[in-house]
């Protein structure tokens, strides 16, 4: 029998190995994120001036869109050969399978952020590195919340024929608090006089969302996966 942490770590390692071989999700997500940002840049930067708070909103919208693309593809892989059934049959707590998939999605989001953040800073003249630790905290907390809900919905919808349509329809309303928290917290740090207290407050709120979302997902994963 496998422990919770070992099973989760094995699933993450397997997902990373599969992704290293195919590089499909990383490339498509990054390309999509960069394209998305360029479109926003052409639309919102006029004569070198950016609409107020646009950089924070664009950063988070780009992450959310790229994340949805990655979520769909990661679970498509498990569906194509029904490998999710083999994972669910393993003698490990099913919640560990969820945590493994969730950690893989969160890592991928952090990778996308590693590319998108410098680009947003450059293209929108946004001082994202002025309070880099706090920005990193907001991004990681937001990614965890987004990945927690996204992984649950993507797993639930993996065998549904209309999963491509249903995933964003279900995911975006549920993750609105995460997106709002991320945008407001980041925007507070991008003002000429950074509002650090406000950013910290949003960070705490994001961590609370994470705790609630992860707990609910752990509780719901087994019943929703046992059809």
């Amino acid at each position, binding site marked *: 029998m496998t422990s919770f942490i070992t099973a989760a770590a094995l699933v993450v390692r397997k997902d990373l190995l599969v992704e290293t*071989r195919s590089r499909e999700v990383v490339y498509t997500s990054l390309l999509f994120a960069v394209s998305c940002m360029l479109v926003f840049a052409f639309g919102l930067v006029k004569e070198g001036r950016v609409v107020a708070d646009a950089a924070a909103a664009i950063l988070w919208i780009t992450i959310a869109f790229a994340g949805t693309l990655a979520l769909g593809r990661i679970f498509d892989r498990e569906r194509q050969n029904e*490998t999710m059934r083999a994972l669910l049959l393993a003698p490990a707590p099913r919640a560990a399978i969820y945590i493994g998939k969730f950690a893989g999605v969160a890592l991928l989001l952090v990778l996308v952020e590693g590319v998108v953040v410098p680009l947003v800073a450059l293209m929108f003249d946004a001082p994202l590195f002025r309070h880099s630790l706090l920005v990193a905290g907001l991004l990681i907390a937001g990614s965890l919340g987004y990945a927690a809900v996204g992984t649950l919905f993507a797993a639930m919808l993996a065998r549904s024929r209309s999963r491509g349509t249903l995933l964003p329809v279900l995911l975006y309303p549920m993750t609105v608090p995460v997106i709002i928290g991320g945008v407001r917290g980041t925007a507070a740090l991008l003002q000429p006089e950074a509002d650090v207290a406000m950013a910290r407050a949003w960070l705490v709120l994001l961590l609370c969302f994470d705790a609630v979302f992860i707990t609910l997902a752990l509780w719901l994963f087994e019943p929703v996966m046992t059809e």
Partner: protein
Amino acid sequence: MDFTSLTLTDVSRHFGRRRALAQVSFTAEAGQIVALLGANGAGKSTLLSIVATLLDPSSGEVRYGGVTAREGSHPLRGRIGLLGHDLYLYPELTASENLRFFADLYGLDAPADRVGRALASAALEERANDPVSSFSRGMRQRLAVERALLHEPRLVLLDEPFTGLDDLSSESLRARLRGLRSRGAIVIVTTHELEAIEPIVDTAYLLSRGRLETLKAGAGSLRDRYRRQAQA
């Protein structure tokens, strides 16, 4: 967590208004090979999914020895081996990596030795480091069978295990199933290749429109008896 019998009592399953299984009851004992026969859509795969704990029945009960799936939880799942229509293999990974991943996930002792033995049993030692995506259907099928049996399960559930296998591989699989029976496994097989399974089957059931009945003894081959009863 171990058991020596599998008992289904009045198991029914509905998908919306469609009835997939209707009050299915049977018992299988350790050391028995049971064939589940039936036309496409008869409910064979649904029944295997329920027995594999991947699907809850709408009503009725499945007992593994004295416990239900809920009571047995994940230790019980460690005693079940399932081969599905789809082969539950990662095409991007090599044969060896696929088996090693599942050996680790099942927490098996000496995983490298087990993987080596499984590759030898599937006659895939020379292709151990090739990605599964480069394998033929028959090679994938042999690897998938070994994946399902890697942890020496007590309950073996095989959905169309002879698909894509050549004569030699089919005979090798029959020998493998006889070995499982002699070691006290409960083997449940669904197949349309009745000639392939006939030499080793102990009990056969016919599943028709979700209802299960014992295949009657009589003259002729397994296919003759199946046809007679299915057309009745």
